[in-house]
């Protein structure tokens, strides 16, 4: 009789044994992962086609993304993938529930990583939204720049644009709050990589695809999180041990897939 919490697992009546049940469940989940892969492949094809049709635009637009944030998120996801793998192993080797705590701990850490990932994404998104770097009709960046330029001309005098280094001269002149505000805005909007967007065709297509892919991936992160939390709750009650850890294993598989997709997304969007 174990001194830890442990629930013995009974296989469903229509299976011969735990064995058959477990391996069926696993095949089922692998087939599900296959559907996920094909779901994303659609967006990757769209990515490739648009990139081929507007290579110049693509260079310029993708330069706007912040590769530091991308790398950070990559590291975060890889770490979470590692910890979840360890969690599965802990469940595999959980004899009498003595490893329940370890499983819970590792899963909790994974969930935290997932959360960090989302926070970073939130910051990236909010920048894009502020700068109007969005899809289709919502791509208001040019309008925003034009408006900002007018305000600056009004506040600093049109001559400001003739200066060699606009920002410096603005900084030297800036006094009133509005001027300070405009200075802050222009340091963001005036970035060369952003300004470059004004000279290329249809950059909204890039941001459309960026938001579609990362958005869909983000949704999967959220789903994975909730899945892991659910498993976490049950492992606290000691449901998973060496003879029955299917849910942990399958939850892990799903999470690894989320990681797998990001491994491709990161270089495709941020680096090349």
């Amino acid at each position, binding site marked *: 009789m174990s001194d830890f919490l442990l629930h013995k697992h009974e296989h469903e009546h229509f299976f011969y044994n735990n064995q058959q049940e477990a391996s069926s469940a*696993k*095949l089922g989940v692998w087939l599900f992962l296959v559907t996920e892969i094909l779901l994303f492949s*659609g967006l990757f094809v769209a990515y490739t086609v648009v990139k081929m049709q507007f290579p110049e635009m693509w260079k310029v637009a993708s330069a706007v993304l912040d590769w530091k944030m991308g790398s950070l998120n990559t590291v975060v996801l890889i770490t979470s993938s590692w910890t979840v*793998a360890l969690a599965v192993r802990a469940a595999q080797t959980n004899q009498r529930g003595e490893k329940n705590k370890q499983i819970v701990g590792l899963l909790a850490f994974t969930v935290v990583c997932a959360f960090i990932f989302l926070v970073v994404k939130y910051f990236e998104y909010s920048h894009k939204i502020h700068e109007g770097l969005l899809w289709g009709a919502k791509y208001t960046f040019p309008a925003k720049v034009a408006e900002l330029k007018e305000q600056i001309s009004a506040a600093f005098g049109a001559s400001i644009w003739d200066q060699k280094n606009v920002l410096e001269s603005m900084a030297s002149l800036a006094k009133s709050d509005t001027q300070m505000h405009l200075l802050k805005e222009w340091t963001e909007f005036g970035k060369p990589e952003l300004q470059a967007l004004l000279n290329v065709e249809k950059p909204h297509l890039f941001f459309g695809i960026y938001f579609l892919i990362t958005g869909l991936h983000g949704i999967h992160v959220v789903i994975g999180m909730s899945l892991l939390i659910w498993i976490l709750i049950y492992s606290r009650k000691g449901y998973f041990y060496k003879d029955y850890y299917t849910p942990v294993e399958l939850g892990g598989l799903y999470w690894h897939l989320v990681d797998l997709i990001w*491994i491709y997304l990161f270089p495709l969007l941020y680096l090349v």
Partner: protein
Amino acid sequence: MSHHDTHHDSHDSHDSHGHVTALSVYHGIFAALLVLTFITVAISRVDFGAANTLIAMFVATIKASLVALFFMHLLHDEKLNVITFTFSLLFVALFFLFPLVDITSRGRIDDLTDTYSLEKENKKIEAHKQFLKDNPKWDQANKDRINHFMGVEAGQK
């Protein structure tokens, strides 16, 4: 495949199911993934032109395979799961292949026939350019629609 007994599957799974990977392996893979991530970022700072994407994809694929083989246990898993996974990649490949064949070879029917010549290609392009010059209004309707859509007033570009 055909002489293959039901319980074969479950036997097969038996070995796999029990299999426990050593901790050191997990840690090793984790380290490797971090290193590879660093490498991709580092390489991307250098410009290899067209090769950029290929290199990045190559590294990404190594990382992906590490995750799939070790973290997802495919290395010791039932053959069937491995097949299922690889199968999906095959179909993804098909999905890429055909649209790209189309996109990359559009409007080049002529070189399927002996009548193809570079001059003719250029002439055609010139003709279309000329045509557009002669008929500025030809594009107007569409431009207007886009401008309206993009929230830009008609006229100003």
